């Protein structure tokens, strides 16, 4: 027969398990940074900005390289850059919808200024989408 104490103990363990699960769930949520835009400059993370509020992020490096990324609720694009070829401007917009169809995927790259803007998304629904 169950004793009252046993029942309480089981409930306690279940609660502890639930708490542990919640902590881990929230942690993974954080590390995945869903809907975040990660900006790299010269190989280092420059900043991370969530999608949402419409805003322009200025990336100013010590060597004078300057890029401006426009971010809104759907995605982002390179608004301006002081690089010589302006290819990053021509790479268009990255959104949560269109990235599987872009050859650069979740990235906008400015090679001369060594800037890489990346949309952090959860693993694609379709496992057959290419990695590169």
């Amino acid at each position, binding site marked *: 027969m169950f004793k009252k104490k*046993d029942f309480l103990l089981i409930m306690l363990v279940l609660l502890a398990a639930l708490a542990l699960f919640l902590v*881990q769930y929230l942690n993974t949520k954080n590390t995945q940074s869903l809907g975040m835009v990660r900006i790299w400059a010269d190989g280092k993370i420059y900043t991370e900005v969530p999608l949402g509020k419409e805003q322009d992020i200025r990336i100013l490096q010590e060597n004078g390289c300057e890029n401006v990324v426009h971010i809104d609720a759907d995605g982002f694009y390179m608004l301006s850059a002081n690089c010589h070829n302006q290819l990053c401007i021509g790479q268009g917009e990255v959104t949560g919808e269109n990235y599987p*169809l872009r050859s650069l995927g979740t990235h906008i790259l400015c*090679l001369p200024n060594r800037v890489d803007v990346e949309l952090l998304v959860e693993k694609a629904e379709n496992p057959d*989408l*290419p*990695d*590169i």
Partner: protein
Amino acid sequence: MKRLFSFLLVLILATVHLPCQAEEKYSKTIFGYFDTVVSFMGYTDSQESFDAVCEELTHEMKYLHQLFDGYNSYPGQHNLWYVNHHAGEAPVKVDDVLFDLLQKCQALQKTPGYEKVNVAMGTVLSLWHNAREEGALPDRTALQAATQHTDFSKIILNEEEKTVFFADPKIRLDLGAVAKGYAADRLKAVVEDKMPSFLISLGGNVYAGDAPLDGRKKWGVSVQCPDGVTPIQFGGDMLDVFYVNRMSLVTSGDYQRYMEIDGKRYHHIIDPDTCMPANHLRAVTIVCENGFLADYLSTLLFLLPYEEGVTLIESIPDAGALFVLADGSVTMTENLHAIAYSHGATAR
């Protein structure tokens, strides 16, 4: 009761802790090497261990980049620039890595059918390089004069001394057709012990290692669609997707480095016999294990008429090719059907 309780406890704890053991995909874009952008990704247990692999990778990449750099010199480094500027005077001692690459090129170039990839035609290629920078065709007489100094047999490799000597002092090496593929092989050797499940792309020169650790059985590697050719499948600008492990994929095409004069396109892959860009194909992708060979073959097949290329690639075991012909039609060797999205292959 106690036993049931401990069993429950273990079960619950196990369930809670299982998800955190899964390995995750990390990726990094690296600038400043091989005149292109390097994409690197892999499955490992933490950002820290991925960063550690990246550091070793970058270290090796910097070394290889400097070694194969034909435009700059580095203190104390007998790199390609140094060889090109001094091997005409006296034999130059070089690192094993550079010597090994030159030896591999020499061996392949001697093989009947493989002659068209000639890393000793630097004189011709630099005329075309300058022409593309200036946007004007190279001078015909200058090209003719340059072809007098492209005889690979004038590059003397001394195996024992590991030296390079130019018996023709005007000859110049250009490793553009092979350096990235060879570098990919060296980089693979650095990474694979530490993080076997990885993929690296040196500007389209791809090596995919062991299977991804997310339940898929293969990596998906897309092939870019040349302009004016109808993209297939997923839409966007992909020509096809190949699902592979432990495999190199290298593409040579007319659509990345080129200039246009009077509406005619002049790209960067030059036929040593005509000194002009080859026009048999729009693009060719080679799939085989070895990155150096894949790189060499992609240039070679681009320089050959389509039928000759097919015959040649079919004579090599475990190698396949995807062709985009001059008229835009797309074909591939039969052995690639099993790994191509367009023929029903999947990553699962």
